């Protein structure tokens, strides 16, 4: 794998991209427990096979989602995050822990 197709900029050299880790559901900021957060922050599925990950085209700071095979080292598909995240997330729910 030497190139990746950025949904914004087209085919670019792989060295222009950084991997931001697997796309995972974040615990609920209002009700998530320490154990849920620890799992979300530290634990990895580390799957051998097709994974869905955040990637960033660093020259343009454009974040998108890529489907990649971690065994064959192939990028199968890239698309804008907006294809998956269609609704705006509400972070204004009450937070008892303070800042």
């Amino acid at each position, binding site marked *: 794998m*030497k190139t990746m197709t950025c949904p914004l900029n087209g085919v670019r050299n*792989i*060295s222009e991209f*950084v*991997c931001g880790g697997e796309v995972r559901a974040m615990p609920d900021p209002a009700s998530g427990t*320490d*154990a849920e957060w*620890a*799992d979300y*922050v*530290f*634990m*990895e*599925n*580390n*799957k*051998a096979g097709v994974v869905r990950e955040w990637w960033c085209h660093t020259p343009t700071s454009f974040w998108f989602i890529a489907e*990649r095979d*971690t*065994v*064959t*080292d192939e990028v199968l598909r890239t698309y804008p995050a907006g294809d998956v995240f269609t609704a705006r997330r509400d972070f204004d729910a009450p937070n008892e822990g303070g800042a």
Partner: protein
Amino acid sequence: MPFGLLKYGLFPSRRVPRRIPPTPELKPSYDVVIIGGGGHGLAAAYYLATVHGITNVAVLEKGYLAGGNTARNTAIIRSNYLTPEGVRFYDESVRLYQGLSNELGFNIMYSERGHLTLAHTDAAVRTMRWRAEVNKHCGVNSELIFPNDIRKLAPSLNLSQDVRYPILAALHHPPGSIARHDAVAWGYAIGAARRGVEIHQQTEVTGLKREGNRIVAVETNRGTVACGKVLQAVAGSSTRLADMAGFRLPIKTVPLQACVSQPLKPFLDPIIVSGSLHAYISQSSRGELVMGGSTDPYSLYSTRSTLEFKETLMAHMLELFPFLSEVRLLRQWAGMADMTPDFSPVMGETPLANYYLDAGWGTWGFKATPVCGKRMAETVATGKAPDILHAFRLSRFEEFAQAGERGAASVGH
């Protein structure tokens, strides 16, 4: 002597003794099953047999003995880490390594070279000073030195200030060493086999049979064996095995590439590491320059090599040693490294009662082979991880108590 030698050479009746026995049939059950026949698993088997008298042990290896990351590291041994827990742990390993050839009766070609970690920025100088102070506090020989002293230790190093990243200082760690990595694994394997441990090569674990909180049997491609206790030591495949056992790990599998040059006459005594330049180099006893860099930029279950890696590594290497531009590369390879969020291993007990974990060895596993084997054997034998492993427990992540060693990982990852 010459006549005896001539006779020995001329008469082909001599036979090289086979010191590691051929793979036997699997028995129906073992007291301890060790999954992974690399340095760590074999060392654990050796210490189980020698220190704890447990010899009804099977070591299961998917491929051939020590053919995974034990064969793919760059054989550097040091203890100049950043956290007191890390320094204490790796220092015990260095001490075990120093006496290992005698202990095993097998020459591991331990060669004490001194280890220089270069600092090219004020921030790096600060980290080196920090490491030196922590090391000294823990009784480990490290000190911060400056270009005049660096020049004496490594006269061929480019200390010009007229480069992109001039060398400002270095962390000098005199006990830093290299050893023959295969010999370490073979020595442990021979010692363990001599005491009755069975080594099963070409034996891949395909499943773990769990009853309640225990693993009762290990399924392999050669049949199923019942087990009293299980030790997992499978760097690169740690998550796949933990998935079978049913618990989660904070590990990403990332390739780490390395390469060697054609052999040269000895000119480089110390091991040279540069975090800022993502490069390290040492000269092996064969004269080859053993070189490596940071891990690959994304996770992958593959041991392929890339041109990008060599381009960036060589660009930086030529800044340190410009005259190497005429030297050719001889071999390249990659290993699959278990990267953890805090750059420390994950060892000891697991959520299962009789299943013990030796994982998360990222880019720092070879140097820990003896201490890890010894202490994991203790953990398996007693059922409880000793104090020296406490900082590296799996549960540290849910307790938000990591052992941050990123600043002391071989190169900036």
